[in-house]
Structures are given as structure tokens and as C-alpha cells.
């Protein structure tokens, strides 16, 4: 058991101050902006909750939210199973492991706007390998004109960019399974599916929770990649929440509505991460009490 020691606060203090500076002051400022209208740079007028009402009832916000939820759902449905499948088929020892890990982690280390640039170039009909090949094969593909094409391009890009995260997480869960488990399963004559269902999946549960929630949250706040590839277009077809928000805050300098939207956005994120945190710590607590029994 961990011991109670309130002096541990002193060890946490530097982190607290640093993050408070970057998080609490800006958050307070956003709250202040959200109830006021601004003219010029430093003149503010009290408007009460008008902006919140406006954002909550605006079609634009609803659409961006729906698009974002749809995007996150599709991303999870593709990336999680694909990531598990790749991790299961990966070699467990030998030189193949290093090669796989290094090559797979590579997309994660590329600056996000470069990821956007890579795919923008790759998917272009005139000079990109993907776009050119598809056109040659007779597909009518153009991600700057067609909504569906734009969506497919963004989804494939995100799968390219982030599936490796799921692979690495699942893989780290898999290698932590002691070989004795597999031997026992072989003696029992367990099928491939049974091994997956009753040995591998439970062992991966912990890291999969992390994977699902990290992927959900990161795709829910995606900004740079779609901004570079489609700029939110064609029309507004790929304008996700963050793109909409930055457009409002920096592009149009509508401080009030942007702040109100930020807060609503933040509350949604807060709710999701609370659920995430609770599920994760609960798992820890259950694992600890489970260990006590066995």
C-alpha cells in the first residue's frame, strides 16, 4: 500500500505551477470572453449568456459536432480492429521486431502538417501516386471537389497516421503474456479463436482502453491534418470542431462566440476524459483486489 504523506505536495508543486500557468489562466480568460462582446482589441461589453445560446442553437456548431463524432466513430471502427490484427501477426522475437517497430512508429513522428502535406501530394490527381493511379484505373476521384472523396482521403490518412499507435499498444499487451499461458492452451487443444478470446483479449484490455480513448480524443480534436489537406472543404464538408473554432477565433476574431464554443467543446472533452479516467483507475482497483483473491 502507498503511504499517506501530504508532504508529497512539495514534489508536485513545480508541475502544478507550470501547468496552472498554461491551463488555468487561459481557461479563466476564455470564461471571461465567453460572456462579453469585444470591439477593437481591449473593449469589452457584457452580453451574458447570449453567445452560449447562439452557439448551442447554431446549425454550424451542430454540423461540425456531428461531422466530428462521425469521423471519430469511423476512425475507431477501422483503426482498433486493424491495429489488433497487425499486432497479433507481428513477430515476437528476432530482428523482425525492431524493423516492424521502427517502421510502424515512423508516421507518429512526422509533424502533423507534414502528414497533411504528404497526403495532399499523394492524393493529388495530377502528380500524386494515389490520385493518379485511381484516375488511370477509371475511378472518378478528386478530393478537392467531391465530399465523399475528401472524407475517404482524410480517413485513410488518419488510419495511416495513427493505426500504429493501436498496434504498438496492443503489441505491448501481447508480449506481456507469459508463454506458459499458450502452452496450457495448446495442451487443452484450444482453437486459435479461443486463445484470442480468452487469453490475448483479456490481457490486452487494459492497453486497449487507453488506445480507444486516446484515439477518440485525438480524433475529436483533429485540426492540422484536415486543415492542410482539405482546408475544411469542399464547402464545409470536412470542417471539424477545431477547424471551425480556429476559424472563428483567429480568422474572424469573434472572441465571444469562439470562447463560448471552446467551453462547450472543453466540457464534452472533460466528460469523456473523466469516464476514461474512471474506467482506467477502476480497472486498476479491480486488478488489485483480484490479485488479492487468487
Amino acid at each position, binding site marked *: 500500500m502507498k503511504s*499517506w504523506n501530504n508532504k508529497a505536495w512539495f514534489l508536485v508543486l513545480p508541475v502544478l505551477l*507550470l*501547468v496552472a500557468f498554461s491551463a488555468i489562466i487561459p481557461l479563466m480568460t476564455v470564461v471571461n470572453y465567453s460572456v462579453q462582446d469585444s470591439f477593437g482589441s481591449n473593449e469589452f461589453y457584457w452580453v451574458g449568456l447570449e453567445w452560449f445560446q447562439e452557439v448551442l442553437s447554431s446549425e454550424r456548431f451542430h454540423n461540425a459536432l456531428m461531422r466530428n463524432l462521425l469521423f471519430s466513430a469511423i476512425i475507431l471502427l477501422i483503426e482498433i480492429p486493424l491495429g489488433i490484427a497487425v499486432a497479433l501477426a507481428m513477430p515476437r522475437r528476432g530482428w523482425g521486431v525492431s524493423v516492424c517497430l*521502427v517502421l510502424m512508429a515512423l508516421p507518429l513522428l512526422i509533424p502533423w502538417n*507534414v502528414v497533411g502535406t504528404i497526403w495532399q501530394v499523394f492524393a493529388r490527381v495530377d502528380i500524386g501516386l494515389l490520385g493518379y493511379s485511381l484516375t488511370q484505373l477509371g475511378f472518378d476521384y478528386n478530393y478537392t471537389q467531391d465530399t465523399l472523396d475528401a472524407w475517404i482521403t482524410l480517413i485513410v490518412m488518419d488510419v495511416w497516421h495513427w493505426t500504429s499507435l493501436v498496434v504498438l499498444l496492443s503489441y505491448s499487451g501481447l508480449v506481456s503474456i507469459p508463454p506458459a499461458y499458450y502452452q496450457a492452451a495448446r495442451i487443452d487443444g484450444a482453437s486459435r479463436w479461443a486463445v484470442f478470446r480468452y487469453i490475448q483479449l483479456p490481457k490486452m484490455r487494459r492497453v486497449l482502453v487507453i488506445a480507444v480513448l486516446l484515439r477518440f480524443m485525438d480524433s475529436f480534436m483533429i*485540426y492540422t491534418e484536415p486543415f492542410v489537406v482539405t482546408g475544411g472543404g469542399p464547402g464545409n464538408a470536412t470542417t471539424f470542431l477545431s477547424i471551425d473554432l480556429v476559424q472563428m477565433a483567429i480568422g474572424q476574431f469573434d472572441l465571444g462566440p469562439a470562447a463560448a464554443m471552446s467551453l462547450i467543446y472543453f466540457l464534452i472533452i472533460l466528460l469523456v476524459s473523466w469516464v476514461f479516467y474512471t474506467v482506467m483507475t477502476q480497472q486498476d482497483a479491480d486488478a488489485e483486489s483480484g490479485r488479492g483473491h487468487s
Partner: protein
Amino acid sequence: MIRRAWIPVLYIVFLMLPLYWLLMMSFKTNQEILSTFSLWPREFTLQNYITILSDSSWYSGYINSMIYVVMNTVISLSVALPAAYAFSRYRFLGDKHLFFWLLTNRMAPPAVFVLPFFQLYSAFGLIDTHIAVALAHCLFNVPLAVWILEGFMSSVPREIDETAYIDGYSFPRFFTKIFTPLIAPGIGVAAFFCFMFSWVELLIARTLTVTDAKPISAIMTRTVSASGLDWGVLAAAGMLTVIPGALVIYFVRNHIAKGFALGRV
């Protein structure tokens, strides 16, 4: 096992194709990119790389990025180490809520903070400095570093601490001489993640810089929109941003999987 090897192979091919295309484009002349469609460069040229490496408005972007990324990694790790130790070893008033609050900052969309960040750092006169970007990136890197280090530290048995204290080690001496070497892989992985997220982030870095500290990724976007479409140079610049990442992955490859699981497997 051999039968299923095609899945990772296929997946890696999928990962490498766009990168291959970028690499090939960086070796082509602009004229070749636009006029002919070829899988490899007909006229192999290094001109695109020379353009970047000889023009200070290009290569200074790499230097700027490097400076704030390193600053951020150092700051994040030095504050995260003691905090992670506190979280992994002690229970204290409000510890769980504090940990959760840190976590929410990792989850918060950077777009929410862009606007007040600009005002905040303007008020302190820090706009267009490297330290501004480094501090701003601490918002998500410090919580992440605490999270990863806490996972690694919790896997070190508590008996080691107790034995050291009985042997008469003071806390600072124990921490630097005994504990830090034990979690060296964890520190490496945390540094890797700080590096990674500071390196790949664009929105905040772009907002807080004007010219003197502008990161390479922001310079790229500007060049694309302004001077038209010099695809070859763009590809070369992109390729050069991939290299530092590839290097650091190579160094932490043995711990990377555990790091992604935040030390919790």
C-alpha cells in the same frame, strides 16, 4: 506465425508508400513532377535539398524547432520526475483529482487554448520567443511525462526505497544515485514522447511565433500558400522533418511499445 506474416508486411507497405512518394518527389526537378508521371526520378537532383540547406529562412526553421523542442523536453522532464515519484509512492490529499486534472490538459483541444495563449504570452512579452513555445507545449507534455514516468516508477518495487533510507541515504541522494538509474528506460521513453509531441505540434507553435522563432512546419505552410507550388522543395522540406523522428525512434525502439502503453501493461 510465418503464414500470417503478410499482414504486417502489407501494413508496412501501406505506411511506406506515401513516404516513398515524398522521397522520390524530393529528388525530382519541379518540371519533371509536373510534366511526367514516373515512379522514380528520371533526372536525379539534389537541388531541392541544396535550396533548403543554403537558405537561412528555410533552415533556421529547423534550428528554431530544435531549440524549443529541446527546451520543452528538459523543462517537462525536470518538473515531471519529482511529481511522478510523488504519485507513484505516496497518497496525499487530492492526489487522484490532481492526476485527473493533469490528464485533462493532455486531452484538451489545443484550439481551445490558442486564443488566450496569444494574449497571455503577449502580456508577458514572450511572443516570438522559443521559451514561449516550450512553455506552451508543457501544457500537454508535462502531464504526459508524469503519466509515463509514474507507470515506469510504479514497476520499481517499493522495498528498494525503504532499503536505501535504512542505509542512510537522503532523499536527493537516493533519487539521483539509485532511483534515476533504475528508471533510465522510462526517462528515455518520456523524453522521446516530449520530443515527439513538441516536434509534431503546429497550431500553438505557429500562433506564438512571428519570425524569429518560427518552426519549420509553419514555414512550410507559408511557402506552400505564398510562393506557389514548388513541389520539389516542399517534398524535400517534408523529408527533412521526418529524419529527426526516425533517429529518435531508433534509439528507444526497445522500450517504445511499453512507452506507448504509458508504462502500464
